[in-house]
């Protein structure tokens, strides 16, 4: 009986809770927010020190990413890009570099530009571009996310690019098992050289503008035969902690989403009960408009329902 009174006190407007469910009181809301923020803080910091149990399960093949990219290009009336093994190796190196140095950016913390990976693998480009994605569960979601972003879409559908290389790298990033997709676009300089007269490549040093997703074009001047030289060849280092074992127990996104949905639905139910009970009892009380709270939480509920895991850069 005491338990039922406690439940009524928590969830139903009554004299004992001043005609407002206790869980909707300011003190209860503060506690709720505190525990939610604490949970998020634990999700962020725990992986760095605790056991590696967080991660994003993914089943992504580079070939499928390339196929979908060409599908989008065909839909836009742009010619397909062909797979280039050198670009794929360069993309693999970029992915491994991000995992080993623990960064998620176009430019590494030490200033390494994306174009470094192109030239390191002796890919002399006329045009180059990079799209990045992480934590997507399937290739379609990643490609759709790129297509929704104007700058990434521009790379995907640019007729300047003739070749593509895609790498899917899995490993540990900030303590969380992560799947990175690195998509390199390029047009080989040799492909753009005229048959006669023979052109020379002027030393093309990409500018240091941060976060471009496409590299500046190199300049051609007609003089003598180019002598391609390869410098700074790097080998794709294996990711710090590559794993495909079923050790992933918790997806940070899915748990956040699940807990958020549960809490919002509970609060919305209690608020609806609050509105119905107070209309029937014609109770006047000092407080916010419960209908407004329902509308606000309803919007949050829709955002949480629509949200999908995955980030692009």
């Amino acid at each position, binding site marked *: 009986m005491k338990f039922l009174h406690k439940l009524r006190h928590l969830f139903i407007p009554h004299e004992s809770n001043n005609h407002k469910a206790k869980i909707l009181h300011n003190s209860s809301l503060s506690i709720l*927010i505190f525990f939610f923020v604490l949970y998020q803080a634990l999700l962020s910091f725990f992986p760095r020190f605790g056991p590696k149990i967080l991660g994003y399960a993914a089943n992504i093949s580079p070939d499928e990413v390339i196929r979908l990219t060409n599908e989008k290009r065909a839909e836009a009336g742009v010619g397909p890009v062909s797979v280039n093994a050198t670009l794929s190796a360069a993309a693999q190196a970029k992915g491994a570099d991000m995992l080993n140095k623990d960064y998620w950016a176009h430019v590494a913390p030490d200033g390494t530009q994306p174009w470094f990976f192109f030239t390191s693998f002796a890919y002399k480009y006329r045009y180059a571009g990079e799209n990045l994605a992480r934590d997507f569960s399937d290739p379609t979601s990643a490609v759709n996310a790129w297509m929704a972003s104007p700058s990434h879409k521009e790379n995907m559908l640019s007729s300047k690019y003739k070749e593509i290389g895609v790498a899917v790298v899995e490993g540990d990033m900030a303590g969380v098992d992560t799947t990175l997709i690195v998509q390199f676009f390029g047009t080989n300089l040799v492909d753009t050289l005229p048959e006669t007269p023979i052109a020379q490549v002027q030393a093309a040093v990409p500018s240091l503008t941060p976060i471009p997703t496409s590299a500046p074009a190199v300049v051609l001047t007609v003089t003598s035969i180019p002598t391609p030289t390869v410098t700074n060849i790097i080998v794709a280092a294996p990711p710090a902690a590559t794993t495909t074992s079923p050790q992933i127990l918790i997806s940070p996104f899915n748990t956040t989403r699940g807990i958020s949905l549960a809490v919002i639905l509970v609060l919305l139910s209690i608020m609806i009960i609050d509105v119905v009970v107070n209309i029937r009892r014609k109770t006047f009380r000092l407080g916010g408009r419960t209908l407004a709270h329902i509308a606000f939480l309803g919007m949050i509920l829709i955002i949480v329902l629509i949200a999908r895991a995955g980030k692009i850069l």
Partner: protein
Amino acid sequence: MNHWTKHLPHYLSLLGILFAGGFGIILFGFDKLLQTALAIGVAGAYVAWGVVHHFLHRDLHPIVIIEYALIALFGLSITLSIINR
């Protein structure tokens, strides 16, 4: 004029704010910074709406403002967690 008709413009404006904010957050899924700014903006607008509404209704009280702020903070913490996971 009954209670609902009197406050209809208030609630319509609130729905407008929430619809625009929610639509923007979903639409700009590729830009985390913009999504964050929109989420903060909507939460702030919600508190502002509450203050104006209760002021016009002549029942504005610090407890009411705190309640709107807490609901906004709760929604904001959930939205930012979802955006950045």
